[in-house]
Structures are given as C-alpha cells and as structure tokens.
C-alpha cells in the first residue's frame, strides 16, 4: 500500500473525469461535439465517442486542423471540445488556438491530456510542461488545472455550461489520489481552501495538491502549519484569495507539475508582487525537459514529491520577515 492509499485516497487518473463529464454533458447538450486526433481512448474522449458516435469526429493525426475544425463547429452553433495530449494541443496547434480560437472568441473547449512529468515512460516528447504558461497568456482563455478526476469532471462541466468562449482544461495520465468528491465545491475562478494554517500557504494545482497535503502533514509534525490551496483555475486567477493568503500567512510556496518559468507559480507571483509582496518560492520543473521513468520516480527526481515540497516550505519560512 502506498502513502496515498494509506490516506484512504483512491487512485484514479484525472483524465477519467474528463471522459465522464463529456458523456454526462452529451445527454444535456445535443449541440456538444467532440473532435479527436487519434488518441480517443487515451484522452477518454472514448466515453463520449462510444455513446454518441454521430457527434464525434476524428481529425486523425492533425492537431492544427482539429483546432480549426473545432472553431468552425462553433460558427454552426455547436460547442466543440477538442482533445489530445497537451504537447500537441497547446503546442502543435498554438497559433490556431491563439488566432482562430481566442482572438475570435470561439466557443471551443480544449481537453489537454497528459499534462506533467507523471506521463512517465513515454518521455519528454509526451510530457506537457509548458501549457500553463502558453495558455494563460492568451486573452479570453480560461485555464483549469484540476487536482483529480472529480475536479476534472466539474471543470469540464463548467467549461461547457458556465463559460461561453475558449477554455483549456489540463489533466494528467497517471492515477492520482482522489482528494475531492461529488460534494466538494468547484467555483470557476475561486481557489479552494484544502487545509488551513498560518505559517505559510502552499498554492498547488493538479497532482501537486495531494502532494502538498502530504507535505503539510509532515510540516505539522514539526509544528509548522501550512495552509493548502487548490488553484484549479489559473485564469481568471483568484486575486482576492491569493492576497489574503499572502497577508495572513506571510509566505507563499507554489507547486505544479510544470516549468517554473511562466507557470501557475508565476501567475501567483504576479498577483503577490502587485498586492501584498511576501517571500515566495516555487516547486516545479526547473528549466529542463522531462524524461522516461515511472511517474513516482520522476516526481521525486524532479523535486515534485511531498518531501521536496516540505523541504522548500521549511527553507521559505526562514525568509519570513514577520
């Protein structure tokens, strides 16, 4: 039994939540269509395509075309969801997303699978570590980085039902601890308080939320009380909560399975320096490409496990001035 199971957390890949949401949404929204790019099972778009084959279109291995097709669907009044791995969605089709989708405010939802280093043995080419940076800089884009399968489900539903315009939902491949359930609230643009504390705040997203909870438990055993925040919406960012955490805890550590440069932590830092500057540090990938390995092994090697987070937290609070 691993540490997550000991905690009572079931291990489920967040991509499952994306697939479940699509199936659920399809019932309520006859105008919902899904466009795939030869990765239908892997992205879990299969949960939709198997039940609603007439509303699923495979673009083949042609991500740029798929992104454009999704935008075109919106001209015909459809809500189009385009899904493939994050490297190919946000990377290969970047200009299509920028100009055709965001500039035109097309009602397109992008399901970015395989976000993060925990993609594992496929290696660097398939580990998306840049999409938070590249998607959040696009005007009109909403960016979700849910923590587990259930939150991915809710984010996907919100993307379709609450937002008219472009949304990017980032989720992962490997099973992650289910830390939320059906009753857990999900409010677009509202960071979620996971655990309270006043010595510092750890703001995390994706699989790093669970790691941060474990880090907070280690810290607690050393009499350090960390607040943990799940920043499931990187854009629009919850300025109010971030400022409040900076004010109340005096130090902010961010944790993400993504490049430190330009990522969620950078987005938080932009708010902190403009509102209530406090010492900050960042857990993330430090300007290197990913590589092959087992997910847990990689998280550890790249300093993205709960122990590394706890370590950084301890060093960070030494820099606190009050």
């Amino acid at each position, binding site marked *: 039994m691993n540490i997550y199971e000991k905690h009572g957390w079931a291990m489920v890949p967040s991509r499952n939540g994306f697939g479940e949401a699509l199936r659920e949404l399809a019932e309520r929204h006859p105008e919902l269509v899904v466009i795939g790019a030869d990765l239908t099972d892997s992205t879990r778009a299969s949960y939709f395509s198997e039940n609603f084959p007439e509303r699923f279109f495979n673009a083949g*291995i*042609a991500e740029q075309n798929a992104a454009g097709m999704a935008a075109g669907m919106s001209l015909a009044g459809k809500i189009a969801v385009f899904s493939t791995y994050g490297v190919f969605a946000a990377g290969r089709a970047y200009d299509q997303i920028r100009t055709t989708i965001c500039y035109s405010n097309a009602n397109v939802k992008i399901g970015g699978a395989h976000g993060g280093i925990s993609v594992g043995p496929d290696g*660097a080419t*398939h580990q998306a570590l840049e999409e938070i940076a590249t998607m959040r800089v696009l005007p009109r884009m909403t960016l979700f980085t849910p923590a587990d399968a259930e939150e991915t489900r809710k984010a996907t539903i919100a993307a379709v039902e609450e937002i008219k315009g472009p949304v990017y939902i980032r989720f992962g491949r490997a099973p992650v601890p289910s830390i939320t359930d059906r009753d857990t609230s999900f409010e677009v643009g509202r960071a979620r308080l996971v655990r309270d504390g006043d010595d510092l705040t750890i703001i995390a997203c994706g699989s790093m939320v669970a790691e941060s909870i474990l880090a907070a438990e280690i810290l607690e055993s050393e009499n350090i009380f960390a607040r943990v925040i799940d920043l499931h919406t990187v854009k629009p960012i919850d300025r109010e909560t971030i400022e409040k955490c900076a004010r109340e805890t005096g130090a902010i550590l961010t944790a993400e399975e993504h490049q430190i440069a330009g990522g969620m932590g950078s987005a938080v830092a932009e708010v902190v320096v403009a509102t209530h500057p406090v010492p900050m540090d960042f857990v993330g990938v430090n300007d290197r490409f990913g*590589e*092959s*390995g087992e997910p847990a092994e990689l998280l550890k090697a790249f300093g993205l496990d709960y122990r590394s987070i706890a370590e950084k937290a301890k060093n960070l609070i030494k820099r606190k001035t009050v």
Partner: protein
Amino acid sequence: MKITDTSRLEEIARRVRFDIIKMTYHAGSGHPGGSLSIADILTALYFNALNHDPKNPEWNDRDRVILSKGHACPALYAVLAEAGYFPREELWTLRKFGSRLQGHPAVDKGLPGIEISTGSLGQGLSIAVGTALAGKKLDDANWNVYAILGDGEIEEGQVWEAFMAAGHYHLDNLIAIIDNNDLQIDGFVCDVMNIHPIPDKLKAFNWQVFVVDGHSIPEIIDVVEEAKKVRGTPKAIIAKTVKGKGISYMENVADWHGKAPNRELALKAVAELGFPESALDNDI
C-alpha cells in the same frame, strides 16, 4: 558493413523482432506494433543499403536516417545495437529512468546513431528536407537522407508541406519510406482519416514513387538501389507492411500499437520467433 546474403539478413531481422519484444516486455510499456512493422526495412537499410560507420556515428559522409515515427524506436535501437553502435545489454534499459534509450529517440541522452529527437509525429520529413537541401545545394554531398514515416503520420499537414518543398527543390538525395501498415491508434487509417491514394498524391507533388513488400528484405534492398539512381526528384518508397509483423496475436491489431505484452504473451512471442523461453530474461 554490407551483408548481401538474404538468410543472414533475415536472421538479423528475427533477432531484432525478438529484441523489440524483450525490450518492451521489460519496460512494461512501449510500441511493439509499429516497431515490428519496420524491422525488415531497418535491417535492409542498416545492414545493406546505408553508408554508415557504427564506430564513427558522426562520420561526415554517412547517410542520414530520420525516424520520423519516433515511437517505433525499439526497432531502431535494436538495429543500432546489432550494428555495434552501443552494447546490446543497454537495450534492456528501454524507457527506464536515466536510460539513453528514451521512450522516443532523444539526442540529449547521447545515444550513438540517433540523428535527432523525434516522437511528435509529422516533423521528420521537414528535417530530412533541410538536411538533403544542405547536402545537395550547399555541400555537393554524396550521401543520402532517409526519412521513415508512418502512414497515419502523413495525416499531419506538415508532412505535406515537406513533400511540397522536397519536390520544389528536386531533392534527389532524399528517400522517404512510408510504413504502410494501414493502422494507427484509433483503428484503420482509411477509417480514421483516409490518406489514399498515396502514390497519386506524391506524384502530383513531383515525387517518384515506388511500392514494395516491406517484409521482403531482398526486395527492399533492390528498390532502395533503384531509388538511389533516380535523379531530379525526391523518392518515396511505400512499404506494404503488417503492423505487429511476426507475432501472431499482434498482427493487424490496433490495440498492440502502444502496449507491452505481459509475461505469458511475451513468452509466446519469443517461442513464435524461435527463441528459447530463457532468452527473455537473459542479461536482465
């Protein structure tokens, strides 16, 4: 290293297939289907058609090979090891943390024989066009460039931009080999996004097109020789292949695109290839 004896070449290809099974089995993941479909093509290239020197991978006059369908790297790794680019034992580190044998070919790990990192489909032919263009127009080079593409892969628009550019520049030092196994991940290429007729399309882009049985090593060797002689246009070889070739339960099954066999099935594959069961675990 030019082997002309067909039975010796077929023996190498059989070992390459065994290596693909053993590597992916011990990795617990990987892409056996599309690796097995190019085992004969790579064997024909590296042991007969290519000018290369395993002891001097950066030899300036070498032919360049770009594995555009990077996920099939187990086949390439096996052939490179067999040719002597690196020790065979290293094959069993495929996809493991710290290995030079990454899940997709990576130059940053320094594995000899890897020209460039691939794995994001559709990029290799453009690279080959650039290399061929430099060789032909700037260096008057006597080497050729080979790009190996999947048939699903040519759904990528970039591939057609590259086809166009190669035709435009009359790159007769460029040979594209299309692994026409009819399958991609989501099923048959003709069902997912039809790419046919490939020969007519390529001819319209000013390519000379050859079609060959991609599992007949002597025929592959002959067609490459013939293609090398053609001047004035880039050349495409459409290799008719079977995804999963050589392993009964993998042949023509899309599901074997990207998963490793379990122990039972790996042993079955080893037996079908004529190796003793114990070979699966030797040197591990």
